């Protein structure tokens, strides 16, 4: 993981002074760019700007406070990262320019690895989507929707059938997936990428 290659963090917080900060460092290090997570001043602008915060167990601000306190299990088992819709409202308003949705992505992947998520709907959806992409190189909406809804929302299917049929009859959904030519090349790249991710 990126976490253990020279941590390029924004602030040299010392885990010697406070070992609780190790979790914060780990999350920040595993986030794509320079997360700036250490710079959070707990102003709450993110939570106040968040369109889905009412459905979150903790607002983004609370999650960042919990991260700092080293509350690993509580953070990774909360629904907050899964309810984040990646709208980037918080990002453009955060006075510290913390990469909030990217941190949410990191928390999701850590929750999957640690199997700490409470509700499997969201991780299953992401994993089914990725499964399709790894098999075909393209997304396959009908396959994804059918597999996902049968497992997680069987009761919604009857009322959704008209929509599904509408999309099909208007040719907005393919019955068979499209496979890219370079699928083996893509598989080789992803295979190596997964091994790289695993190097600690």
């Amino acid at each position, binding site marked *: 993981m990126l976490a253990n290659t020279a941590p390029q963090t924004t602030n040299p917080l010392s885990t010697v002074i406070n070992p609780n900060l190790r979790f914060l460092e780990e999350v920040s290090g595993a986030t794509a760019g320079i997360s700036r997570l250490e710079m959070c001043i707990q102003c709450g602008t993110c939570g106040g700007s968040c369109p889905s915060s009412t459905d979150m167990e903790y607002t983004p601000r609370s999650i960042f406070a919990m991260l700092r306190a080293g509350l690993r299990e509580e953070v990774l088992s909360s629904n907050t990262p899964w309810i984040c819709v990646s709208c980037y409202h918080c990002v453009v308003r955060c006075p510290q320019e913390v990469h909030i949705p990217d941190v949410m992505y990191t928390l999701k992947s850590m929750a999957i690895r640690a199997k700490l998520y409470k509700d499997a709907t969201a991780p299953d959806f992401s994993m089914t989507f990725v499964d399709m992409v790894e098999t075909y190189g*393209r997304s396959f909406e009908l396959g994804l929707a059918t597999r996902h809804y049968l497992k997680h929302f069987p009761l919604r299917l009857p009322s959704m059938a008209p929509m599904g049929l509408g999309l099909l009859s208007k040719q907005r959904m393919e019955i068979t997936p499209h496979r890219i030519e370079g699928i083996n090349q893509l598989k080789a790249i992803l295979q190596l990428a997964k091994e790289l991710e695993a190097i600690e």
Partner: protein
Amino acid sequence: MTSYLFYPGCSMETSAKAYYESLIAVKKTLGLDLVEIDDWNCCGATEYLGINLIPAYALISRNLALATQQANGSRTVVAPCSACYLNLAKADHYMLERPELGEKVNLALQAGNLFYKPGSLEIRHLLDILINDVGLEEIKSKVKKPLRGIKVAPYLGCMVPRPDYKKRWSDHEHPDELDRLLSALGAEAIDFPLKTHCCGGHMPQISPSTAFELIRRLLHGADLYEADLLVTVCPMCQMNLDAFQAETNRYFHTNYKIPIIFFTQLMGLAFGEDPKELGFGRELVSTEFALSRIGLEIPEPDGSKVQPKRAKKTGLPMPTMPADEEAHK
């Protein structure tokens, strides 16, 4: 003709076919030469990033590497889908910001004999190209049938104006580019306060009540302003507001019937193209009333009479799953 590298993205071939068809119909008039990146793959949408970091960025970067190989003259990649646009831009941006990320991604790309030098391409959204390269004056000069009499809510969604790594938009929350484009076409663009609010993203599949509330807010807003229709630049926004409008109505006991179409479809109408060539009729919430305001009728899309066979249990035709396919090898 200005040449661009073109990354269509998965939905342009399926759920957002109308976007693709209308783009093809207007690109000539606009002098755009869009060279599709050969054998591009899915960008991973908002799903892969939340699973595995390096594979997610390697998946995106295979497209950037292919684009660089194909770049002859043009270094600009155009994406019409907001999520694709952001993913491509994000990968490029973060690999520059955090060189170790770029190094690892390139190690992975080596397995496919590919390489991408972060920062070597410009990643731009289609609307940005139309506004800033083609220009509103040029667009205005091509208008044959001004869209007078129609009230449109310009709806951009999230991922085009935000996070906006290259500071290309007039504002992150209330940009006016799409409004100005609509005015150039002769339509009345309402000052839509929710123009960059979220459509729910993938939430209809994960937390339906969260999604329905976000969809409801947008429909309610458009209704308050008496918009005849919403116009979007994003396949996911179109899908959520169009395909899930009925379910949202059932959930809240409302009765909204607000059509949502792609901005390229309206451009085509203003340029005098046949609505059939522009993908009209593919939307689930009918545009019939909205278009009648400008004296147009909507066609039935080809093949709409063919009813797919019903599968026994669910009422939905069953696709082949990767697992089944592997098992039958």
